[in-house]
């Protein structure tokens, strides 16, 4: 399998806190890699640096053999590096349809058309409906997204990320606050995505992680302490220690 994105000795510190400490990671095409680790391990910060939300302190991010370290987020998204946030980030005042439509529009093009109606972008509409259909949000297309239930808002954010046609998708705790049924639905969905793209999943629900991951990376205090298949991670002493040590 080909490596699609990798980090080379990536560092990020906040003052004296080393949130990401010399991380070398590889993400492969059509693979689901989970990143786990105790609270404050640096999982979110790691994603933030890769996706252009935060500048790296040192080190490099390489995407398809191209150095993309510290590129602005919108450039990375256009290259195919998309993400969702640990705290839901959607366009609250807009309808479900419009949330996904604007993401599709940015991907497909047409944002500089000032004299046509936004409904007129046929490809954008088709793609939007396709994604809403795939994520079973179609019936809620007209609902203002701030009226959605929490679980559907999380799902909507995944829909928006997918509309950007990602080659690699970072999901920061997508199941947080979801009901068991919703969690199951999104877990299946995430697994299905790896038919075409690479997925990086940060997740606290170990049941989900162990079931759907191809590979797992364990972070603790900004460092990778273990890597491997779900089975090897389950049996790893260092990992157990890290989780117990931090409660």
């Amino acid at each position, binding site marked *: 399998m080909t490596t699609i994105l990798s980090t080379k000795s990536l560092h990020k510190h906040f003052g004296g806190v080393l949130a990401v400490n010399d991380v070398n990671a590889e993400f492969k095409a059509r693979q689901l890699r989970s990143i786990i680790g105790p609270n404050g391990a640096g999982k979110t910060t790691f994603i933030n640096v890769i996706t252009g939300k935060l500048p790296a302190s040192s080190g490099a991010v390489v995407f398809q053999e191209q150095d993309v370290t510290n590129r602005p987020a919108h450039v990375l998204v256009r290259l195919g590096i998309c993400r969702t946030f640990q705290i839901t980030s959607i366009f609250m005042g807009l309808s479900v349809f419009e949330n996904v439509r604007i993401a599709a529009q940015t991907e497909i093009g047409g944002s500089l058309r*000032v004299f046509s109606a936004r409904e007129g*972008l046929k490809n954008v509409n088709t793609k939007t409906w396709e994604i809403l259909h795939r994520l079973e949000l179609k019936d809620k297309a007209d609902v203002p997204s701030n009226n959605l239930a929490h679980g559907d808002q999380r799902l909507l954010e995944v829909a928006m990320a997918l509309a950007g046609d990602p080659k690699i998708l970072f999901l920061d705790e997508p199941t947080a606050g979801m009901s068991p049924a919703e969690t199951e639905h999104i877990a299946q969905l995430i697994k299905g995505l790896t038919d075409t793209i690479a997925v990086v999943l940060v997740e606290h629900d170990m049941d989900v992680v162990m079931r759907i991951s191809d590979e797992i990376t364990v972070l603790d205090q900004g460092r990778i302490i273990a890597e491997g298949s779900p089975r090897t991670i389950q049996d790893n002493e260092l990992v157990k220690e890290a989780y117990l040590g931090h409660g």
Partner: protein
Amino acid sequence: MSEMVTKRRSTHPMKIVALLIVVTCLTLFPFVVTNRFYISLVNEMLIYGLLAMSLDVLLGYTGLLSFMHNAYLGLGAYVVGLFLIHVAPSSLWLALLAGVVVTSVIALPVGWVQVRTGGLAFALLTLAFGMMFYTIVWKWYSLTGGDDGLMGVPHPDIQVLGITLGSSGNPTTMYLLSLCIVFICFLLTWRIIHSPFGAVLEAIRENEERASFVGINVRRYKLYGWMYACMLAGVSGGLFILYRGYIGPTTMSAFAGAGVLMMVLVGGMGSLWGPIVGAGIFIFMQDYISTMTEHWELFVGLVVIMLVLFLPRGFIGLGDYLTRFRKE
């Protein structure tokens, strides 16, 4: 499936009918009410309506707070005035064009700096730049007339396709010119707001971070929105100087800037006609109450406080309120 999309957004025919009725009434107005005072009053409402509407493109559609949008009306007005005085006293269209172009040229570097920030920092920068322009205009006596203002601006004839429609010094002719241009700008802005480009501005208003994480170059689109708003402000400035024949630095003061902001808030942001209605109410209070008492600002303040308390969404909120009332 695609039918659902078209249905969702189509403009209600009643809105088009209402717009046509309003425009017809406004067109007939100077022939029914021939009092020059009232014609000029409504003319000023239209001009400030255009300015308030352009501010709402920033505030209500892109989520950017500009404290001194009047600075760009002022710049447009001074440029058009200076053009008519020094360059070509009879070229009305050329003067208006110069006003828009020069205003845009000045607004570009300002916007370039401003869009690097957001929220409060953006708002403070608009204040800083606006006060800078105010001071320049106020102090550069030899060019602008300083405190005395720019006087003796000629009134060119209004010509369309070689046909002279009348002098811009004639209140009725000038009123009709303003109405025509404001109407065109309204339609243009309506078109832009509902375009794919308008959708990008809305996304930025709703959530800047998310906007950049769906691939939008937020700074660039903020700059586009800013430039459009300043161009329209430049147009309103051109109309302003043509109708008044005079402009002083107070038009560009922070106090006047707060007035434009109030027009938008009173009318209701996030709509195009709201700010125009807001400008109408504000100018009416200002001109009408000032004939009765010199403390008119006090009354304007009171009315604004009442509106904010009872119509928090502004005048457009009243429309929603009435339709809901009727349904129940």
